[in-house]
C-alpha cells in the first residue's frame, strides 16, 4: 500500500477536495507564486532543525505491528537494521560487520559491528537481535518463509549469532535488509519480546535519531533528537546502506493534512521539505525559485484492478481476460496523475518498470488498441448476463477515486451493470475482506495501488500470490503460479531470477491474477537551502544539510 492511503484521515471527502483543488488551481493561476518573494521570517535561526511534512499522520511507531509506510519511514530514524538496501538494489551490511554462509547454504553466521549502542545506553547484543528477528518473522512474509525452514537461531557470543536452516534460502540478506514493511528493525530484547500483534510500549532503538516521546502529538507533530553515541559506517550513505550521518540536532515532522496549506507553508519557509506534494500544486511550486522539486520515489506505485475470483463473472478466467483486453492503462494513468507525462508509464507487466529484473513476458495483452468486441464476446462466453458488478471505490483517496470512475465507464462500455459503491477507504478495507457473494455484502472489484518497491520481485508482493483461500483479497488460486514463484525464491543470480520472473509474469498475465492499471510516481519538494535530498523509496534524512 502506498503513501497517503496509510492515512486516510487527512482527506475530507472527494467532493470537498475537488472543489478545493479547483480553487487552488485558480489561485495558482492568479499568481500565488508571489510566495517566492516572501521572506521566511519565521524560519530564521533554525539551522540545525529540519522541519518535514510527511505523507501521512504518524499514528503509531511500531515497525512490525503497524506496517504503513509512514511508520516505516519514521522507524528508520530510530531503529537500525543488520543489512540495508542501496540505490542499486544491492544489500550491504549495516549493523552487521559481515556474515559467513556454510558451503551447503544451510548455516548463516552473522557478526555485529563493535560499539553499537541503544538509545538507553545499553550495548546491542545478539540476544536483542535474535528477539527482534523472532518477532519480525511472525509478521513479515519473507520472515515467515525463513521461520518455516529454520532449525534454530542461536547466539554464538554477544556479537555473533547463527541461523540454521533445513533448506538453502538465497534471499536471506535481502530479507534482512529490504526496505519494504515490515523492516527487520533491531530492538532491545525486552521490547522485542512484545507479541507481534500488539504494539510495543518503548521506542528505543540504535538508529541515528532518538524519538522524543514527550513532544509527540499524534496527528500533529513528531520529534527526533540526534543520538550522540551513534557510530555511522565509513561508507557513503546510500538509502539504507552506508554511514547515516545526521546534520541536524532535531528533526520535526509536522503533519499538515491540507495539501494547499502544506504548499503555502513550504513557500513561506515554515517547513523545509514536503514529502508528497499534490500533483495539482506542483506547477505553483515549480514557479517558486526557493523551492526544488524532483521525483520522490523512483519505484513509484503500481495501480491495481482487483477482481474477486470466488464469484461470477470473475471466477471465470474469460471474464477476467475480457477486462484485461479492454482496459487502457493510459486512461487510468491520465485520470490519476493528469497531463504530466513524466509521472507515469504503461506497464505490460506485474513488476516495477525500470528495475533490473523487470520483464514484460506475456504482457502484450495490455498493449495496443483495446478490443471491446472481443471483450464482450469473452464476457458472454463466461456466462455474464447483466448481473450487477459491485465496484468498491475509496473516494477519499484521489488515485482510487480516479481509477474507480474510469472503471465504471469501462464496465458500462462493455455492457456490464455497475453497482458503484462510493465509500471511504476504511470501509473498503473492511468490505474487501468479506467473502460472501457480492449481493450479500461482498464485492466484485476494488482498486488499490502497491508501492513499486514491493513489486520489484515476488518477495514482498502479497498481491501476486495465488494461494486461494489464504491469498490476498480476491483469493486467486493457481498452483502453477505458486510453483513459478517458488522457483524465483530458489533462483540465485540475476539471470536465473529474471528468467523466473518472466515465467511468473507470463503465467500471471494468462491467469489474470489482477490487472495492473499502470505505473505512476509523485514529486517531493524542498526549499533550496536544503542539500542532499535524494530520490528513494523512503525519505532519506542522513546526509541532508541545511544552509
Amino acid at each position: 500500500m502506498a503513501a497517503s492511503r496509510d492515512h486516510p484521515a487527512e482527506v475530507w471527502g472527494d467532493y470537498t477536495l475537488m472543489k478545493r483543488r479547483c480553487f487552488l488551481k485558480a489561485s495558482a493561476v492568479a499568481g500565488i507564486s508571489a510566495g517566492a518573494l516572501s521572506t521566511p521570517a519565521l524560519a530564521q535561526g533554525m539551522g540545525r532543525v529540519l522541519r518535514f511534512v510527511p505523507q501521512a499522520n504518524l499514528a503509531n511507531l511500531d515497525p512490525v505491528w503497524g506496517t504503513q509506510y509512514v511508520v516505516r519511514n519514521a522507524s528508520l530514524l530510530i531503529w537500525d537494521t543488520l543489512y540495508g538496501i542501496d540505490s542499486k538494489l544491492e544489500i550491504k551490511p549495516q549493523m552487521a560487520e559481515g556474515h559467513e554462509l556454510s558451503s551447503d547454504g544451510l548455516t548463516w553466521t552473522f557478526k555485529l559491528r563493535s560499539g553499537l549502542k541503544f538509545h538507553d545506553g545499553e550495548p546491542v547484543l545478539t540476544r536483542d537481535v535474535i528477539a527482534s528477528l523472532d518477532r519480525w518473522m511472525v509478521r513479515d512474509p519473507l520472515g515467515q518463509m525463513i521461520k518455516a525452514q529454520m532449525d534454530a537461531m542461536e547466539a554464538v557470543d554477544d556479537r555473533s549469532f547463527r541461523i540454521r536452516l533445513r533448506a538453502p534460502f538465497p534471499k536471506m540478506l535481502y530479507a534482512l535488509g529490504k526496505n519494504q514493511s515490515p523492516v527487520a528493525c533491531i530492538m532491545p530484547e525486552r521490547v522485542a519480546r512484545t507479541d507481534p500483534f500488539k504494539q510495543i510500549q518503548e521506542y528505543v532503538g540504535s538508529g541515528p535519531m532518538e524519538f522524543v516521546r514527550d513532544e509527540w502529538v499524534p496527528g500533529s507533530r513528531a520529534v527526533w533528537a540526534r543520538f550522540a553515541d551513534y557510530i555511522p559506517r565509513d561508507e557513503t550513505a546510500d538509502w539504507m546502506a552506508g554511514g547515516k550521518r545526521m546534520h541536524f540536532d532535531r528533526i520535526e515532522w509536522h503533519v499538515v493534512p491540507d495539501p494547499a496549506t502544506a504548499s503555502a507553508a513550504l513557500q513561506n519557509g515554515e517547513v523545509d521539505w514536503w514529502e508528497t506534494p499534490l500533483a495539482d500544486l506542483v506547477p505553483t511550486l515549480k514557479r517558486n525559485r526557493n523551492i526544488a522539486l524532483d521525483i520522490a520515489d523512483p519505484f513509484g506505485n503500481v495501480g491495481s484492478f482487483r477482481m474477486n475470483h470466488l464469484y461470477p463473472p470473475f471466477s471465470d478466467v474469460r471474464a477476467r481476460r475480457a477486462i484485461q483486453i479492454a482496459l487502457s492503462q493510459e486512461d487510468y494513468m491520465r485520470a490519476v496523475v493528469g497531463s504530466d507525462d513524466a509521472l507515469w508509464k504503461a506497464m505490460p507487466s506485474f513488476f516495477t518498470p525500470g528495475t533490473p529484473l523487470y520483464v514484460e513476458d506475456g504482457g502484450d495483452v495490455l498493449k495496443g488498441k483495446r478490443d471491446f468486441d472481443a471483450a464482450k464476446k469473452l464476457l458472454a462466453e463466461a456466462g455474464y448476463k447483466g448481473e450487477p458488478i459491485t465496484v468498491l471505490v475509496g473516494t477519499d483517496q484521489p488515485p482510487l477515486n480516479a481509477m474507480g470512475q474510469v472503471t465504471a465507464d469501462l464496465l458500462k462500455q462493455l455492457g456490464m451493470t455497475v453497482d458503484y459503491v462510493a465509500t471511504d477507504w476504511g470501509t473498503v478495507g473492511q468490505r474487501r475482506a468479506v467473502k460472501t457473494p457480492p449481493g450479500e455484502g461482498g464485492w466484485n472489484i476494488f482498486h488499490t495501488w502497491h508501492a513499486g518497491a514491493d513489486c520489484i520481485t515476488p518477495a514482498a508482493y502479497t498481491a501476486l500470490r495465488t494461494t486461494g483461500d489464504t491469498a490476498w483479497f480476491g483469493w486467486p488460486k493457481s498452483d502453477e503460479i505458486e510453483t513459478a514463484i517458488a522457483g524465483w525464491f530458489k533462483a540465485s543470480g540475476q539471470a536465473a531470477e529474471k528468467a523466473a520472473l518472466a515465467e511468473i509474469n507470463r503465467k500471471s498475465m494468462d491467469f489474470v491474477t489482477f490487472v495492473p492499471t499502470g505505473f505512476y510516481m509523485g514529486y517531493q519538494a524542498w526549499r533550496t537551502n536544503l542539500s542532499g535530498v535524494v530520490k528513494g523509496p523512503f525519505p532519506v534524512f542522513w546526509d541532508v544539510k541545511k544552509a
Partner: protein
Amino acid sequence: MLAYVVRRIVSTIPVMLIVALFVFSLLYIAPGDPAAVIAGDQATPQDVERIRISLGLDRPYLIRFGGWLWDVVNFDLGKSIFTNLPVTLMIAQRIEPTLALCVATLLLAVSVAVPLGVIAAWKQGSWIDRAVMTFAVFSFSVPVFVVGYLLAYFFALRLDWLPVQGYTPIAQGFWPFLQNLILPAVTLGSAYMALIARITRATMLEVLAQDYVRTAKSKGVGQRTVLFVHALKNAAVPIVTVVGIGVALLIGGAVVTESVFAIPGLGRLTVDAILRRDYPVIQGVILMFSFAYVLVNLAVDLLYTLFDPRIRY
C-alpha cells in the same frame, strides 16, 4: 438558582448515557475495520483477523459496550487503538488549541457582529445597512475553507504578516500564540459573525419599534444609550440563544479550520479517528463535545436571567 444549576448538571447524566449508547451503537454497526488499517495493505486476511482479536474487536456488542461503559463511569475513556495513548491524554493534548480557537472566534464574532447588527438596525435601509447585510450574506455563503485560503494567501503568502499554519501554546508567549490564531479565528468567525449580525439586526428592528424606545427618545435620551442600553439589553435574549446554538456551528467549523491551518485541535483528532475507525477516541471526543454542549446550553439559560429579570428558575 443553585438548586436549578445542580438539577441541570445532574440531568446531563441520562443525556450522556443516551449519547454514549447512541455513539457506541452507531460505531458498532458502521462499516470499517481499524485492524485492516493497522495491518496495512500487504497483510493477509489472517493477519487482520489476529489483530482484530488482539484488539478485542471480535467480542459481542454487549460485552464491549458494558466494558467501555464501566470504564467511562470510572473516568477512563480507554486507549487509542492506533497510538496506544490514553484517550484522555489525547484530548488533553488537543483541547487547548480548540478552546483557544473557539474562544477567540466567539470574542471576535460577538464584538464585531453585535455592533454591526445594532448599527444596521439603527440605519435601516441606508447604505450602511445594505453593506452590513451584504457582508453577512457573503460571509455566510462562502465556505470556510475558501475564506481560509484567501486569508492565508493575502496575509501569509503575499504580505508575510502571519504564519500559514500551526499553533503556539499560550505558555510560549502571547504574541506567537495570537499570531497563529488570528487567521483561523477570522476564518471560523466569518459565518458566525454573519449569523449574529443578522439576528441582532432583526431583533433590534423589532425592539426599536416598541413604544418604550419612542418614549425614551422623546424624553431626550441619547441615541447611544437608547441603542446599547435600552434596546440591546431587551434584544439580548434571542442573540444569546443564537450565540449558544452557534457553539455547535463553531465545533463543526473548527474541524475544517483546524485542517486548513494545521492546528492540532480536537476537530482534527475527531476526523482522524473517524476515518481510521479509532473507536475509543471517537467515543471519548463525542462524549466530551456532548458534555460541553450541555454546559453551554446551561450557561445560555443562566445568562437569560441577567438580561431579563422576569426569567426565574
